[in-house]
């Protein structure tokens, strides 16, 4: 599987980019040249170093408060990746758990859950998160819940559908035939067989969550202003886009690069896990 994934050049490069971003986020306190919130009043809107009027101590320039952009982008990676991971894990666990129960036991639980899911599907995700955040104001717990509120639905649907198919498989009957308990069948027989599509979905959801978080932060109702976040940085640089283009552009490029890499990696994962691709 790993071989297939690495054999796919696009996915391999995308994977490397993702790993690079993760390393950058983890090592930000060591790698970043400045504290991300440290202001340099003497160097407001300093241009990147390669510009004629650029300052070499701010590699990617500084913003309207004289904060180093490179340091802020490194620290911004932390919150994007952290929120992405937390939200995706939360929705993965909730959605998969409920989906497996609904798919295996069917009946009233399945009927009620599936109607709830249908209802949630009718809500536009971002507008819904926007409404929650507008009501609570920027705070991290509310942000996680707003992003996770609907995300579990996708995992629910994939898990339920795959369990529905797997429960009829002969190996489930055979497992019951050797005296396996329901819990054993669900977690030890069925779960390993439905994991691959869930992993792929998790990767693709990660990209969506990162974009959503950046969007909310851009609107000023996502990550609290004290924490450097890419979305907030793009918003901050918006007013200066004509004079100091770098303030909005570099965080925007960071969002683009990370989301693209996560997406391409997810697609590579999907191809590598697809049995039809195995020769």
């Amino acid at each position, binding site marked *: 599987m790993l071989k297939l994934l690495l054999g796919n050049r696009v996915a391999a490069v995308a994977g490397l980019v993702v790993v690079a971003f993760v390393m950058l986020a983890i090592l930000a306190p060591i790698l970043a040249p400045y504290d991300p919130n440290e202001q340099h009043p003497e160097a407001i809107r300093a241009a990147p170093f390669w510009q004629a009027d650029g300052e070499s101590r701010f590699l990617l320039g500084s913003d309207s408060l004289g904060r180093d952009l490179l340091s802020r982008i490194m620290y911004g990676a932390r919150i994007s990746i952290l929120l992405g991971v937390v939200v995706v894990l939360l929705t993965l666990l909730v959605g998969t758990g409920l989906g497996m129960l609904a798919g295996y036991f069917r009946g009233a639980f399945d009927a009620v859950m599936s109607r709830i899911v249908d209802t949630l599907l009718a809500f536009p995700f971002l507008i819904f998160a926007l409404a929650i955040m507008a009501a609570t104001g920027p705070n991290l717990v509310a942000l996680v819940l707003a992003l996770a509120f609907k995300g579990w639905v996708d995992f629910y649907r994939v898990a339920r559908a795959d369990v529905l198919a797997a429960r009829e498989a002969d*190996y489930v009957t*055979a497992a*019951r*035939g*050797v005296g396996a308990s329901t819990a*054993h069948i669900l977690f030890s027989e069925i779960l*390993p*067989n439905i994991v691959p599509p869930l992993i792929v979905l998790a990767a693709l959801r990660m990209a969506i969550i990162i974009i959503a978080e950046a969007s909310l932060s851009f609107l000023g109702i996502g990550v609290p202003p004290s924490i450097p976040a890419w979305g907030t940085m793009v918003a901050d640089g918006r007013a200066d886009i004509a004079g100091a283009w770098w303030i909005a552009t570099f965080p925007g490029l960071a969002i683009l690069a990370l989301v693209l890499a996560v997406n391409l990696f997810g697609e590579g994962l999907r191809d590598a896990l697809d049995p039809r691709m195995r020769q």
Partner: protein
Amino acid sequence: MAAPLLEVRDLNTCFSTYRGQLRAVDGVGLTIERGETLALVGESGCGKSVTALSIMRLIRRPGRIVRGEVLFAGEDLLRKSGGEMRRIRGGRIAMVFQDPLSTLNPTFSVENQIVESLRIHRVARGKEARERSVQLLEAMGIPAARERLRSYPHELSGGMRQRVMLAIAVSCEPELLIADEPTTALDVTLQAQILDLLGQIKEERGLATLLITHDLGIVSQFSDRAAVMYAGQVVEEAPVAELMEDPLHPYTAGLLRCVPRLGRPDVPIRPIEGSVPDMIALPPGCRFAPRCPEVMEHCREAVPPLYDRGGRRMVRCYIYRQRSFRQSGANPTGRPGAC
């Protein structure tokens, strides 16, 4: 005579469908003595597999066991709790299915799957379980058993997989083995090998076997007695030699005429005319009446009971009404099932 190992009495299993109730198993009665092999024969859809699954209590919605008793070593399995049933499944009654590729979990190695069964029934664990797995695979005639432990189902051949299934089945030393068409998915040479292996297992371990098959050749070689099923009912039960030599029920006779005789090209192969009845809208009388060459007026009116002909022979046919000892067995009156 001691009580039989398995005695099924008046078993009724129904499935709810959109068109109505389907009586898949209708008043089936079977007995298996310790160490004996009973073959359950019949064409596809006659209720053989559902009978087996009912004995194991593995019937799931929309199916349900409506009535009957499944006495295993004198105790009614239909009255057992879920936990007691789990200990019996795999522990005292083991089952082997038709297609070993789909019955082995594709995500686990052979070792995992054998050890799992040992672990569930607390027979062995850890290193001991591993050694037991090797012994079991060797006993099933798998070469290089130790290396094979790490294989995944898709890496094994069909015959190999069925050997692994048998290893799992006998791992906890059951008293009864239910083999549901164990050789149907295999080619002919492998069929012979697997049947030899089954015979050997039976011999060595004194295992009673319920062999489900549609292959009369397998029945004659491998079993002591046979029960013939048609449209959810047992129509004839007899020791194998007698059944083959002198079939009583017109359906059994018809089945035997469908089998080519080796070295007897002069005996014509004659198929049974017509087709199996609609299991939801069954004919009121004998279920075989519409296809029966010897059908009488009475056959179309009421379901015939099972007549006991002595010598462990039973037949569900009015031809034997005058000449029988008594009505016997399960569902003696032929009353319709309780769906």
